[in-house]
C-alpha cells in the first residue's frame, strides 16, 4: 500500500463504537451499494431533536469501518443541529488525520448514511405532509431560519447571507425526483452530496427530506395532466404552491425555527405580499404567486436585495465552489429540456386533425400533447404564411392553427386565485414568464373566476399558465391565478360564444 492508516483508524477497527442496528429506530439510512464495494447503514433514535442513540454497520474497507465508528461517536447524544453539522473533516480529524489517498470516499459514505437516517426520521414524522402538503406552524420570535439549498449558487449565497445577518441557519435539500444526477449511486456526483458539502463548508447543519411522493403527485402528475388537457402548465409554480415552502416550514417547525428562506429573487412587501426584487431582470414573483400568505409571512428572500452579478461575486469572494455552476434548468425533472418526449413517455399520443379557425382540415398530427398555444415550429403543415397554434382541443383531438394576429386576446379568464391584497388594487397582469405586466381592468365573474380586460391585445395566452396581478406601480403582487381560457380578438368582435372543444 502506498500510504498506511493512522493508528487511530486501526484503533476504531479493533474497537468500533456503536456497532449494530437499533431494534426500533426513528430513522434508518443506507448509502453505497455492494457494486462499489462499500455499504454503510445507520439507525438513529431521535427525541427532542437530540440523537439519543446511534448504531452503524459497514461492509467495506477499513477506512469505511473506522469512519462509521468515528462518526457514530461524534453524533451520539448530540443535538440534531450539531449532528447535522458534522463534516467530513471532523470525522477525518477524529481518525487522527487525513486518510490514505483514494480512501476519502469513506467519509462521504458514512456521512450520507447518517444523513439519510436523519432524513428518514423527519420523513416518518412528516406523515401525510408527503401527500397532502403542510399547513404550517407558529413562530417564536427567534432569528432562526431553514434555508432551502439546491446546490446552486443562489441558494448557497442565500444561506451565507442569512448566517452573516446573524440568523441561526439550517440548510435543507429536497429529494424531489429520481432524475437527479447520480442519485442512485454513491460513486457519481450527486446534488445532495454537493449541497451538503456546501452547507458544511459554511459551518451550517444540513438536512434532507424525501418529497418524491408529494412532488410526483402535486407537480409531475399535474404537469402531464395539463398537457393532456391541452393546457400549458408551469411546474415551478406548482412546486412553490404545494411543495417547497411547505416542506421547509415543516422542518422549521420540527426544529423550532421561525423562518424559511429560499434563493428566489423576490421581496416580501407590505401586506404581506410578494414584491419585485432589486434585480428586476431576475424577478421570480411571477412563479411565487401561489404561496400561502401565512407561509410568506415567515419567509425571507435575501436575494431580493441583490443583483445576480453581486450574488456571483459574493460566492466568488467567499470561495463557494458553487460560484461557477451553470444556471439551473427550466424544469428540474427534465434535465435535457425535452419535455415533449418526457410527456410522450407518460401518456399515449392519439393522432388527430390540424384545422383552421373555419374548421377546414389542413393536416394530421400525432398527438395534442405535442402542441401549445403560440407554437410555430413543428406544426407540419405547409402554408404561404407562418402558422401558429391558436387553440388545442383535447376532446376532439384537434389542433387549431391560424395567423399570428389570431393569437391576440383582449380578455383573460383566471381562476384558482390566491390574493395577497384587495383585488381592487390590481392594475396590471402578467401572463407569461419572461414577459412584462400589461395594463388591465379586473372584473369578478363569480364562482371564483376573474376576468382581466386588456385595453391592448396580448398574444399567446395559454390555458394553464399563470396570470399574476400587480399594483399600479408594478412593484407588488396583488394576487394570481391560472388562466382558464382567453378570448381571441376576433371572437370578441363577432360576439360569438365559446369555441367547440374549449375546456375549463
Amino acid at each position: 500500500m502506498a500510504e498506511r492508516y493512522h493508528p487511530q483508524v486501526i484503533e476504531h477497527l479493533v474497537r468500533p463504537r456503536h456497532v449494530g442496528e437499533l431494534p426500533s429506530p426513528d430513522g434508518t439510512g443506507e448509502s453505497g451499494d455492494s457494486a462499489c464495494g462499500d455499504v454503510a447503514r445507520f439507525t438513529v433514535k431521535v427525541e427532542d431533536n437530540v440523537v439519543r442513540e446511534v448504531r452503524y454497520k459497514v461492509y467495506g474497507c477499513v477506512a469505511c469501518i473506522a469512519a462509521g465508528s468515528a462518526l457514530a461517536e461524534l453524533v451520539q447524544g448530540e443535538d440534531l443541529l450539531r449532528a447535522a453539522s458534522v463534516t467530513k473533516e471532523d470525522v477525518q480529524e477524529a481518525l487522527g488525520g487525513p486518510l490514505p489517498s483514494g480512501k476519502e470516499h469513506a467519509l462521504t459514505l458514512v456521512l450520507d448514511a447518517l444523513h439519510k437516517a436523519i432524513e428518514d426520521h423527519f420523513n416518518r414524522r412528516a406523515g401525510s405532509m408527503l401527500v397532502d402538503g403542510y399547513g404550517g406552524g407558529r413562530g417564536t420570535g427567534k432569528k432562526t431560519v431553514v434555508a432551502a439549498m439546491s446546490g446552486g449558487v443562489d441558494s448557497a449565497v442565500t444561506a451565507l447571507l442569512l448566517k452573516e445577518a446573524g440568523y441561526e441557519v439550517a440548510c435543507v435539500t429536497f429529494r424531489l425526483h429520481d432524475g437527479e444526477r447520480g442519485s442512485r449511486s454513491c460513486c457519481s456526483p450527486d446534488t445532495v452530496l454537493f449541497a451538503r458539502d456546501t452547507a458544511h463548508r459554511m459551518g451550517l447543519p444540513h438536512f434532507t427530506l424525501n418529497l418524491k411522493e408529494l412532488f410526483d403527485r402535486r407537480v409531475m402528475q399535474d404537469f402531464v395532466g395539463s398537457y393532456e388537457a391541452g393546457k400549458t402548465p408551469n411546474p415551478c409554480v406548482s412546486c412553490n404552491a404545494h411543495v417547497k415552502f411547505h416542506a421547509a416550514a415543516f422542518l422549521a417547525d420540527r426544529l423550532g425555527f421561525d423562518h424559511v428562506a429560499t434563493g428566489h429573487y423576490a421581496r416580501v412587501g407590505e401586506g404581506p405580499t410578494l414584491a419585485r426584487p432589486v434585480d428586476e431582470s431576475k424577478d421570480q414573483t411571477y412563479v411565487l404567486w401561489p404561496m400561502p400568505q401565512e407561509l410568506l409571512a415567515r419567509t425571507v428572500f435575501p436575494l431580493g436585495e441583490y443583483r445576480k452579478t453581486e450574488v456571483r461575486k459574493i460566492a466568488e469572494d467567499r470561495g463557494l465552489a458553487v460560484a461557477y455552476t451553470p444556471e439551473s434548468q427550466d424544469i428540474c425533472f427534465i434535465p435535457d429540456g425535452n419535455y415533449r418526449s418526457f410527456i410522450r413517455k407518460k401518456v399515449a399520443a392519439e393522432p388527430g386533425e390540424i384545422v383552421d379557425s373555419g374548421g377546414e382540415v389542413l393536416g394530421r398530427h400525432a398527438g395534442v400533447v405535442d402542441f401549445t398555444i403560440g407554437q410555430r415550429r413543428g406544426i407540419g403543415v405547409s402554408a404561404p404564411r407562418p402558422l401558429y397554434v391558436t387553440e388545442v382541443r383535447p376532446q376532439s383531438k384537434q389542433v387549431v392553427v391560424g395567423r399570428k394576429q389570431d393569437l391576440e386576446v383582449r380578455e383573460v379568464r383566471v381562476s384558482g386565485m390566491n390574493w395577497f391584497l384587495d383585488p381592487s388594487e390590481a392594475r396590471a397582469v402578467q401572463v407569461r414568464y419572461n414577459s412584462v405586466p400589461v395594463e388591465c381592468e379586473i372584473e369578478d365573474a363569480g364562482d371564483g373566476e376573474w376576468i382581466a380586460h386588456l385595453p391592448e391585445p396580448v398574444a399567446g395566452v395559454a390555458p394553464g399558465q399563470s396570470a399574476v396581478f400587480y399594483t399600479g406601480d408594478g412593484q407588488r403582487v396583488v394576487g394570481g391565478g391560472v388562466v382558464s381560457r382567453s378570448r381571441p380578438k376576433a371572437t370578441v368582435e363577432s360576439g360569438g360564444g365559446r369555441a367547440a372543444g374549449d375546456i375549463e
Partner: protein
Amino acid sequence: MSTPVYLDNAATTPLDSRVLEAMLPHLGGRRGNASSLHASGAAALDAVEEARASVAAFMGAEPGEIFFTSGGTEADNIAVLGLAAASPENQHLVVSRIEHPAVRQAAEHLGRIGYEVSWIGVNEEGRVDPEEFAAALRPDTALAAVMWANNEVGTVQPVEELAVICEQRGVPLHVDAVQAAGRIRIDLGSVPIATLAISGHKLYGPQGVGALYVRRGVEVRPTVFGGGQEQGLRSGTHNVAGIAGLGEAARLAAEELDVRVAHEEALRDRILDGVCSIPGVRLNGHARERLSNNAHLYVEGVEAEGLVLLCDAIGFEIGSGSACASGGHKASSVLLAMGFDEQEAFSVVRVTVGKDTSEQEIDGFVEAFATAVARLRELSPLYAG
C-alpha cells in the same frame, strides 16, 4: 507486544539464517566486482559461478542456462520481451489470464505495439485447459506464457503437458515459477520449457535477486544494455551478495524440498480444517493441485482489508488476495478470470505458511481468524448470518 505470527510467505519469505551466513562475506570484508581482473574480482566471480551451479542443479539445468537478474519481475520481462524480439516475424502471443503482472503487463505492452495476444482463460479452480491452450497456438506465435503456480490462489498449472505441446508446435514456452520454486520439484532436463523465472525472496533468499533460465539453443534478445554481464542478456554489475544468497537458498531448497512440502501441506490442511468449518468460508482454487503453503479463502460478507488489518492488530500477518493488487480498490483479475463477481473478489484473503511455521502458530491463527470474521460480520450490513 510479542512478535507477530507471519503467514504471508507468498508475499516474501523470511531470510534463512544459513543464507545470511553465505551472504555476509560479500557484504562485509570483500569488495570485488565480478568483472574485475584482480584477486578481489576473481573471488566475487567465483561466488557468482558457485551460485550459478547451485541454481542450475536446483532446477535440473546447466550452469550456462542460468542468468542472474534483479528479481522475478525482471526475469519475466527479459524472457517475454526477449523471446518476442528474437522472432520479429512472429507477432502473436498466447498468455494465460492469471499471470503475475510482470508477465501480463509485459504482454499487454507488446499488445500495444502491434502484437496480437490470445488470452487463455481458466476454469473455476484456476486451471488452464491444455486443449484450449493448444488450439490458440499458431504458426506465427512468438511465445506462450503460463505460470507454474498462481501467486494468488495457489493453483498449480499442468505445465509439463503445456511444455510438451509447445515443443511439438515449435513455440517457446515461458514459465513464471516464482511461487512454485522450492515447493514443486523442477526438472528442466525432463520438461521442455524454454525460459523460466525464479525469485530469491520467495525461497528464503534475499530480496532483489532472481534468475532466468534460458534453455540452450533458445534465443532471447537482450532488453537491458550495458557492460555485457550475464552473456550480454542482463547487463549490470553483479549483486554478488544477493546472488550468493540465492545460490545458497536454492541449494537448501533442493536439499530440503520434500521435508518442507510435507510440513507446509500439513499446516495448510490444519488451517483449512480449522477455518472452513466457519459458515461462509471456503477454499478458492484447486483442492489438490495447489501449492503446499497456500490457503486462499473466500469469506462471505467481509471485506479483505478489514480482515487483514484486524488479524494484524491481534498478531497475525496474512495477505489480502495478492499484495500487489491490494493498493487500489480493484478486483483481482485472477479471481475475475475464475468467475468471481466483483464483490466476492473483495472478500478473499491469502494465508501462506512457511517452512518455519509451527502448529501452535496455526492453532492460534485459526482461533484469531474466527474471532475477526465474527466481529467483522457483526459490522456488516450485507451478512445476515
